[in-house]
């Protein structure tokens, strides 16, 4: 699966959050980045080039800081210019049909402010509805929104967690499945193993074996349980 991250950020080069996110996945060949503010500082999009680019990826991620409950203006202009009707509408053979659309948004406020009855009054899911509508129109699967709140206040441990979750968001082909999450981790450890010294490879193999054994055990238990439930239904 190939992922394209499209970033809208007027101060991209000075953003610590964006720098961190970039460093999280720079070693992954299947993820490419497009920084709109760098590529098109005057908003003059090369529509054909960008449509061709979009057609090459299975997962497309819009990544931006939340400005007035939406993305910075350049992303809206990109949508207006690049996502033409013939290219986008599912019912007119649009080429985005069957792809996935994800949103990574960074917030200056605590995430708990985005709730009914709290400071911001609306949830992030509610605010991101226009993107969900776009995905729906294009026949794309809309992924759960990935929010990063107050990056500068994160502890080292929280940054570790963010890094793993973000990589998972970009590269795990089935985001809502624990089964897929386990396989994703095993794959990541196998990649690390490739560059280990021979003396360390054995330790890594034992860890991978343990994860795999647990995976198999869970699979077996789920199967047994589904058989029992089936019997109970009959």
């Amino acid at each position, binding site marked *: 699966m190939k992922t394209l991250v499209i970033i809208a950020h007027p101060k991209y080069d000075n953003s610590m959050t964006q720098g961190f996110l970039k*460093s*999280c996945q720079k*070693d992954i060949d299947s993820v490419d980045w497009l920084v709109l503010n760098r590529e098109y500082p005057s908003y003059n999009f090369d529509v054909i080039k960008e449509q061709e680019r979009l057609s090459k990826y299975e997962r497309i991620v819009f990544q931006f800081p939340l400005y007035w409950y939406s993305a910075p203006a350049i992303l809206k202009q990109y949508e207006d210019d690049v996502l033409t009707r013939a290219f986008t509408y599912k019912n007119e053979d649009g080429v985005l049909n069957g792809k996935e659309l994800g949103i990574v948004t960074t917030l200056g406020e605590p995430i708990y402010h985005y709730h009914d009855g709290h400071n911001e009054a609306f949830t992030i899911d509610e605010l991101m509805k226009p993107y969900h509508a776009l995905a729906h129109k294009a026949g794309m699967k809309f992924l759960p929104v990935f929010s990063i709140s107050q990056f500068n206040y994160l502890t080292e441990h929280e*940054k*570790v*967690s963010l*890094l*793993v979750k973000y*990589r998972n968001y970009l590269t795990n082909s089935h985001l809502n499945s*624990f089964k897929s*999450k*386990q396989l994703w*981790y095993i794959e*990541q*450890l196998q990649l*690390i193993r490739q560059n*280990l*010294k021979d003396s*360390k490879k054995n*330790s*890594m193999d*034992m*860890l991978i074996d*343990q*994860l795999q054994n*647990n*995976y198999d*055990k*869970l699979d077996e*238990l*789920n199967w*047994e*349980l589904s058989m*029992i*439930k089936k019997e*109970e239904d009959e």
Partner: protein
Amino acid sequence: MTDKSWFDEEVDKLKKDETSFTNRALLEHTKCLIREQDKRIQQLQDELDGRTWSPDKW
């Protein structure tokens, strides 16, 4: 069930020589995954026991 102290020790040993922040993060988070796996195994086993010994089947 996983021997967690053994698993954590092995992870920590690998982390020690690892210079990449990304790799250290992935290794560290593997501890969370193994705990989640163990929790789910236990829950499924309990559910299986509960359903197998249900009074409805007596």
